[in-house]
């Protein structure tokens, strides 16, 4: 069986977001973006990976928003 489900709506970013206040700040921004269906951040990983599920938002838009908060953010390779 060939699976051709497109996964382009799942975006992953490398950030420097830490626990606590950083997360709160991010939460405010993320919850304000209505086009985002789901998001999570893995602060236990060295890359502090931000994962966003959205069919309408592109990676650059997320990067801009996160950088506007003063954090590093780039697409994870």
């Amino acid at each position, binding site marked *: *069986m060939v*699976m*051709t*489900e*497109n*996964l*382009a709506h*799942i975006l*992953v970013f490398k950030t420097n977001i830490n626990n606590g206040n950083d997360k709160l700040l991010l939460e405010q921004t993320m919850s304000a973006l209505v086009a985002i269906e789901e998001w*999570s951040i*893995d602060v*236990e*990983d*060295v*890359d502090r*990976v931000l*994962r966003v599920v959205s069919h309408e938002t592109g990676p650059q838009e997320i990067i801009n928003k996160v950088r506007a908060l003063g954090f590093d953010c780039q*697409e*994870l*390779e």
Partner: protein
Amino acid sequence: MRVRDENKEVAIREKAMEMIVKGGFEALSMQKLAKAANVSPATIYIYYKNKEDLLHQLFNKAQEVFAARALQGFDPEASLEEGLWTQWKNRLKFITESPIYYQFFEQFRNSPLINHKNVNMAYFRENMMIFVRNAIKRGELSKMDPEIFWSLAYGSFYSLVKFHLQEKKMMTETFKLTDVKLKIALKMVVKALKPENAN
């Protein structure tokens, strides 16, 4: 275009189980897993949000695979002896062919890390329940606590598996669970499960 790759997913899953079996839950990290499975960290994060999410999905999937394998050719309407035989054979085959699943379950069983119900197991449980009810109805099985039933019907089997895998040793160093030996044990178990007044 980024698309779902079933092969890659299986590779990630089995590598993750392998790492857990070898070094415990602590040994696993998303980065280490990416390296071991020869994929980019981004690929891992497409499928899983974090380590906890990975463990949950891993456990669910492993149970699904187990259920599918255990139910292969299994008829819940079969007699107690026939049905148990199919279960034992299926489970032994699965354990021998894919030991990583068995070891992974063993690791999980002793872990307080995850305690959750898997909804995907409903079909499997229902099949097992129908099988047991039928056996009681036909007078092949006495009514007993499910824990007692499991200990006799499956506990005995898993104990033999441990000897077979050399995880436990008794008199001989080289006990092998052959079909003949398995059948001998099954006959005794079936006899023990029978209501007292039955022949």
